[in-house]
């Protein structure tokens, strides 16, 4: 019998294991850290930020005791600066660009400084920004994830009336449903949603899905502009024998269930867990499985460390939490015993002379009570291909530099568009850029 159960830990362990993975800086720590910023010219960190936050300026403001001003600098570029401070892979964005890396291989801790400023602001303010006089224009935003929220906020600031349609029961998107619990503790995602909506002029229609409850053509008729921030709805299949066996779960769904459960001890986890994939989702699933009390957790990835979607920092986080990462293995068969999973057979992989990934014929079996699939998500295009369609490219919505789709009056952004990097911060940038383009179009 496979060993899958809930409540593997003592009650106190759950609180400890799912507390903040990066505790915030104290005011003293923040000032000390702010001193390390060189206030670079044409700052590389700002250039590396998809939302172009003026990082040296906000850090300088922290250093002078103007923490509210620091947060305003952040929010003026990125209204979800609070969540980005928690979930951005800063080690491959702003902090990788920090010149302190060249000086001493230790960047300014920009993410934590950003969190310090944004937390300070959210503790004192219900919203950011002052709306321009009402324009009388209405915009529909589909999807209340980071892209949709950022778009809605910017449009609201410009004086437009926004309605967000969200298929799920509440707003937040991946911030609410898709991120490891220890990265956004204490209900931060909902708190941030309230903060964004606090500016006014934004209505949220939850439980309304495109294609089910309304159509794109209908939105186009009822609104002056439409923004699609649909995200990705489906997960990739392994395409191997035994995938349907009990005990093989979809990591995205499992993470969501965990995130939404107020009682982490109610979440079932295997004693031996194999996570298949190499991205952030794989790490989030594996680390949380470990934190729920799994004995052995292995991330199995078909290529090497450098090719993993998870940053080096995330890989280290997994390893520090006792997760083993096995490289160069591809799943071939999920082995069952009775009606449940017992193991996964992998084939060792390698690059051939042409640099292509090939099987080596050598196999390796990992015993498993639970298997989590984390090999990527895909965009479900059905709803945008009914009636008036928007053009796709590479399976996602095609957009121009201003986030315009092929359909007049319809913009799109976030993970559902071509070229998306599946990052919160990029979704925010898309939403903001689309909003500015929509505003320009509505003002013309």
């Amino acid at each position, binding site marked *: 019998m496979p060993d899958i159960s809930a409540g593997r830990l003592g009650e106190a362990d759950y609180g400890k294991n799912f507390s903040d993975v990066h505790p915030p800086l104290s005011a003293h720590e923040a000032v000390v850290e702010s001193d390390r910023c*060189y*206030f670079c010219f044409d700052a590389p960190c700002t250039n590396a930020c998809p939302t172009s936050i003026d990082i040296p300026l906000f850090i300088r403001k922290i250093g002078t005791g103007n923490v509210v001003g620091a947060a305003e600098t952040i929010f003026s570029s990125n209204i979800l600066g609070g969540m980005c401070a928690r979930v951005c892979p800063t080690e491959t964005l702003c902090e990788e660009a920090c010149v302190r890396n060249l000086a001493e291989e230790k960047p300014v801790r920009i993410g934590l400084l950003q969190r310090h400023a944004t937390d300070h602001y959210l503790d004192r303010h219900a919203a950011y920004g002052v709306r321009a006089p009402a324009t009388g224009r209405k915009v529909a935003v589909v999807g209340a994830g980071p892209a949709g929220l950022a778009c809605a906020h910017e449009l609201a600031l410009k004086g437009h009336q926004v309605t967000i349609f969200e298929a799920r029961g509440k707003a937040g998107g991946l911030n609410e449903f898709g991120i490891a619990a220890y990265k956004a503790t204490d209900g931060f995602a909902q708190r941030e949603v309230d903060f964004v909506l606090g500016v006014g002029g934004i209505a949220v229609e939850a439980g309304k899905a495109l294609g089910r409850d309304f159509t794109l053509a209908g939105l186009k008729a009822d609104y002056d502009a439409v923004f699609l921030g649909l995200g990705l709805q489906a997960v990739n299949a392994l395409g191997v024998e035994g995938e349907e066996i009990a005990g093989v779960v979809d990591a995205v769904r499992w993470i969501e269930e965990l995130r939404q459960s107020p009682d982490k001890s109610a979440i079932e986890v295997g004693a031996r867990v194999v996570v298949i994939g190499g991205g952030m989702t794989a790490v989030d699933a594996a680390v949380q499985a470990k934190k729920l009390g799994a004995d052995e957790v292995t991330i199995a990835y078909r290529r090497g460390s450098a090719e993993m979607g998870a940053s080096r920092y995330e890989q280290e986080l997994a390893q520090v939490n006792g997760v083993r990462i096995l490289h160069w293995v591809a799943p071939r068969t999920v082995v069952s015993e009775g009606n449940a999973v017992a193991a996964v057979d992998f084939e060792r992989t390698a690059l051939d002379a042409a640099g292509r990934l090939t099987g080596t014929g050598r196999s390796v079996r990992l015993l498993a009570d639970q298997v989590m699939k984390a090999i990527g998500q895909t965009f479900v295009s059905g709803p945008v291909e009914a009636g008036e369609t928007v053009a796709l490219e590479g399976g996602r919505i095609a957009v121009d530099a201003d986030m315009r789709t092929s359909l007049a009056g319809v913009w799109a952004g976030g993970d559902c568009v071509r070229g998306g990097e599946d990052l919160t911060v990029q979704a925010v940038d898309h939403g903001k850029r689309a909003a500015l383009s929509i505003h320009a179009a509505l003002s013309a």
Partner: protein
Amino acid sequence: MADLRTNFLGIKSPNPFWLASAPPTDKKYNVERAFRAGWGGVVWKTLGEDPAVVNVNGPRYGAIHAGDRRLAGLNNIELITDRPLELNLREIAEVKKAWPDRALVVSLMVPCEEPNWNSIVARVEETGADGLELNFGCPHGMSERGMGSAVGQVPEYIEMVARWCKAATRMPVIVKLTPNITDIRYPARAARKGGADAVSLINTINSIVAVDLDSFAPVPTIDGKGSHGGYCGPAVKPIALNMVAEIARDPETWGMPISGIGGIETWRDAAEYIALGCGTVQVCTAVMTYGFKIVEEMIDGMKKYMDGHGFSTIEDFRGLAVRNLSDWKYLNLNYIAKARIDQDLCIKCGRCHIACEDTSHQAITHMVDGVRHFEVKDEECVGCNLCVNVCPVEGCITMQPMAPGSVDPRTGRVVPAQYANWTTHPNNPSAIAAE
């Protein structure tokens, strides 16, 4: 191995590092801790007449901080010792007896009347102390009563009191100067005229260290009010070095022993004062910040420096920088330097660029062939050194002199080999015609 022993006015000490007259030298307890830590001497905190002065019972200090709250400047409104004269004299005698190899100089401040000075000098003499330092420097509190810097700002008073003291004692007399004066050479000359054996400088600088923006009161604030204090610490060192240099190169005070004071924290600071002619240095703010232990670094660092340069005693390099002090008008206008950025050390912060671009000569690139790259444009660079000073990486940007005979791309002129200064420059209306 370098020998740090010094003989200043006949006062011997195992090293040139003395503690200045200040809170760290107010009593036996502190002074003995300092001697145990390795300090070569102390100037006992200024004695006055009984009844003793009183101090405020609120904050006495205020500070300015550099990055990471490193204390850069300290301001104080403390007065001279507030302990009974008798107690101080007894402890001075005890300490001198217990530590005969250390320098023990006593700082004094009494009203400007000869009997007052004669009286206190005689009493100090009985303690066996090595010397006197006349406190003509304190800029706050005591100056309102006609003492401290109120004396130091009037050369005639300095001369007068120095003469009284020299006549009254066998001990060497050091006059401690206030920097709160337009030309430091005048009080120094007066000290020499009065027969003083040496000067020590600087005392603290008049200062308001900060204004509280909620109460709108100066810092430190005593029940809602504040008065100016005396400023010291690393921030004052450049001011002090200049004043020391002025005295060191003034023909009227040439050769007069100097004890250097002002912002000394490390062996390097001390060595700079010695290079400008000081025979000893005095430290206060640094020990008030870090404790007495810093002298270990000073002793070791100074020895290493001296060994590295082949100096066996302090005298071997004392004053070596004095000959290089010059008036601006004699600086060589034919010396041409250009900034050079070491690309291997450059971390690409761009501070050199923006400083030059916004505030100087537009002589540093920020982009070359579409790549972030900082490089000096020789045709624009005037060699001002600002980029060197704003660069966060020491040694990354250096000033390279141009060889005589080469062409300065900025002016298109050949760099002359011969020295030429402003006094003969054609743009100088009072230039002396070059023959």
